[in-house]
């Protein structure tokens, strides 16, 4: 099934990121996701854009962040691209919540994370998360498959 596509560009300004979020949420609801699922699609794209602004562009406004969405009833694909500093291999390789780190000790307050959760959230929610840096362009791609409802005979 063909997907509907949209491409938009925002300035690298955290105050503008909500505009992307609203669009992703509305499009996700349109293809049938419930409130929580649509929120999680919005969350992942917002996290990716926030990371781009903070890390690729060092929190500085005045740079372009390009967001694309391809939406169909069976699949959602999102990409966030920039021309800033690429994510390091160490950051990409780190898996905060794997194995023993999965359960936070509620009594070990100093060990609770106060950052770096965005990429892990994307990996938890999405079926696939890929990142590549080529020719000065960094691009993070996320895919979520939407289960097709089984019709009862």
């Amino acid at each position: 099934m063909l997907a509907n596509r949209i491409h938009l560009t925002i300035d690298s300004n955290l105050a503008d990121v909500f505009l992307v979020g609203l669009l992703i949420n509305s499009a996700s609801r349109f293809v049938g996701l419930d409130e929580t699922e649509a929120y999680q699609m919005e969350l992942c794209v917002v996290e990716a854009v926030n990371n781009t602004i903070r890390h690729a562009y060092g929190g500085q406004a005045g740079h372009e962040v390009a967001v694309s969405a391809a939406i169909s009833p069976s699949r959602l694909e999102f990409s966030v691209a920039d021309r800033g500093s690429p994510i390091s291999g160490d950051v990409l390789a780190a898996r905060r919540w794997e194995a023993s780190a999965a359960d936070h000790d509620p009594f070990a307050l100093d060990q609770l994370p106060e950052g770096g959760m965005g990429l892990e959230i994307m990996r938890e929610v999405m079926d696939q998360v890929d990142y590549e840096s080529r020719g000065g362009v960094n691009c993070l791609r996320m895919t979520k498959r939407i289960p097709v409802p089984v019709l009862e005979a």
Partner: protein
Amino acid sequence: MKIEANKAGKILVIKIREARFGADSVDSFSQQVLPFIREENPAILLDLSEVNFLDSSGLAALISCLKARNGTGHLALCGARASVASLFRLTRMDRVFRFFPTSEEGVAALS
């Protein structure tokens, strides 16, 4: 960010009066809320009932509040809608924070 702080008996209820609690509002949140957190309030209830979008930056600000309490009193959350609550589950933070469905139930339980 607009917040509202009210006492319900000994409980301080801090309500976030915004639909979105994200990266662009955490500085304002922390500046307003951390002073309350550091005061000697035996129990604080953060009311998220008007928040329909919370990202990891907003969550991190809530974690900072918990750390600032440093185990010296209750800090609980109330009113989180199902979508927002899902972020706590995704990040395993549902094990760290105490949740109540409504501020009334939170106040009753903590009083």
